[in-house]
């Protein structure tokens, strides 16, 4: 069982490819998308995705906008932001919009891994709570 299901979103193709290889070697199930739009499509296709690693600066739909859409449509999915140009402002904005965390490129792979694990754990704990709440609701229903 993989540590987590991850969607990696970045418009730099070589980056995505190498990152995918490295993360896969570390037991993550990685799906790749190269634009904000594509990321939404992939999320729709594969509901098992738990964590999204999202680049901030992308053409067309940029990271912040993509984050908004993801949070709107797939609120339980955790998002980790990758920013390449060191603006603390976008990082903070992202956090306000509900991102789990943000990292600066180039990033330390181990650091990223730790964050992904934490994000996945959070999602799973949420999922469990929801299931528990539903169960409770069903079992407490009067016949």
């Amino acid at each position: 069982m993989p540590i987590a299901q991850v969607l990696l979103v970045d418009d730099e193709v070589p980056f995505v490819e190498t990152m995918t290889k490295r993360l896969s070697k570390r037991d993550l199930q990685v799906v790749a998308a190269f634009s904000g739009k594509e990321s939404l499509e992939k999320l729709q296709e594969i509901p098992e995705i738990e964590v999204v690693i999202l680049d901030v600066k992308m053409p067309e739909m940029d990271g912040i906008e993509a984050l908004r859409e993801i949070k709107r449509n797939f609120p339980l999915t955790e998002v980790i932001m990758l920013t390449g140009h060191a603006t603390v402002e976008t990082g903070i904005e992202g956090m306000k919009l509900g991102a789990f965390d943000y990292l600066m490129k180039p990033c330390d792979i181990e650091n990223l891994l730790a964050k992904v694990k934490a994000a996945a754990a959070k999602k799973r704990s949420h999922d469990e709570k929801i299931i528990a709440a539903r169960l409770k609701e069903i079992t407490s229903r009067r016949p």
Partner: protein
Amino acid sequence: MKQPDTPNHSYYRSLTRKMILIVIIVSLTPFILVTGIILEQFQSSYQEKVRHHLKELILKHQQNIDGFLNERLSDLRFFSKSFSLEELRSETFLQEKLIGLKREYNAVYEDIGLINVDGFQVTYAGPFGLASALYSQADWFKKAITKEFYISDVFLGLRGIPHFIIAVKQDRQGDDWILRTTIDFKAFNSLVESIRIGKTGSAFILNKAGEFQTTPQAGAVADKETYMLLLDKIAKTKDGIDMIEKADEAGRESIFVAASLKHGDWLLVYRQDAADAYADFNRTRKIALTIFLLGALAIITMALLVSKRMVRRIAKADREKEMMNQQVIETGKLASIGELAAGIAHEINNPVAIMVEEAGWIQDLLSEEEFAQSENLEEFNRALKQINTQGKRCKEITHKLLSFARKTDPRVHAVQINSLIEEVVGISDQRAKFSNVSIKTDLDPDLPLTEVSPTEFQQVFLNLINNALDAMEKKGGTLTINSRREDDHVVFSVSDNGPGIPKEYLARIFDPFFTTKPVGKGTGLGLSICFGIVKKIGGEIDVRSVLDEGTTFEVKLPISKSVPAKSAGTD
């Protein structure tokens, strides 16, 4: 750096000239017009008055003299009618009467005589011993015997002295007898002589033939032509008075006023130098012209001075505007560079990230079993780690650049400048190493906060450091940065041990556009911007330098008010 002088210089010179010209023309034209018009009006009216006055004068004198002559005539007629022939034939009687006349009329009558129809002077009373004189051939007699009365011209006569006579004819006992009296020439002359007006005015009497009847003043002579002209004119006038302005024999412009006397027989001529007659006006005109010249001179001088000063001000304002423009351009450039830097930094980060990831991937692969025995495994790992390290370094560099190039926030808040200093030192580190300069910092850790705009302060600091690095580029050296507290100021200094700054430059070093760098290398604005920023905050910036030893820039900043004042002892 001075603006190129030449194009501006000729521009300003022509501007000055235009200003001067306009001021002079605008000021002088009305001045000239007013002076000219007033003088002209005044002159014509004054001359009119003078002429009128002279005519009046002559009229008066004409009446005077004519009156005198008529009176004498009346006297004689009365005299003649009052006494009988017998009485008149008595010499003693006549003498008595002469004395009486003389007494009464102030010695005007010189003598008196009774002459018969043949011209024989029967009786004579007077000083000349002319008893029994014969006048039958005399001109006057010939005329007198035909008229009721006769006044003669001035002539020498038997006595050889100029005189004129008044003769009255009367029929006594069937014959014509003439009673004749001589008028004292001197007395008559003095009547006319006394007509003096001004400095050069004098009068005299001429007869119809232009012969003088009184003695004219010295120099008051004109040619016969003038007199004939006058006579002519007078004949045409109603009251027998007229005036000519002509040059006399000596060439002086003169006014001749003439009046007819004795029913046109004589001409009373009055002559005066034109310059004399119009003396008052001429003086006024001189004064007016003097004032005008002085005024014009003053106007021209003022025009020159004021215009020059004005243009100097304009030139100065133009220069300042030019400086302002340059500063704006520089600021714009800096802003563009900032934006460019941001873009570049991001652009660089992505490729660097990719490189680091690939190296990391290789590292991951190397940890696989198949490479465990590889002899170069250690070397591979070391090299890959190095790539990682350098990648991180790139990141730091671009991050530093970006944080500095962010839009300058002029907002002031209390900051610890030590951290700002350290940031800037970090940025400049690389360059310093390149130039063989070692940077030493000595920052007081308890430095109080100051109210500055962080970005502006960093700009000041970066400027100072860069200048020091530029100075030490060739030989390298040490750059010392020091921060400390002094009373209620925070003081930091940037010292280098470079070539120093010559004394004559020290005074101008904060001037805009002043630079010792070659064209294209420096704008000369760095220090002047520093100066402006420091001054704005309320601080001071100073420079000390010794040739071949080094330069120190010192900046004093006021402590933030939010910091409690330093207390004397411990709390």
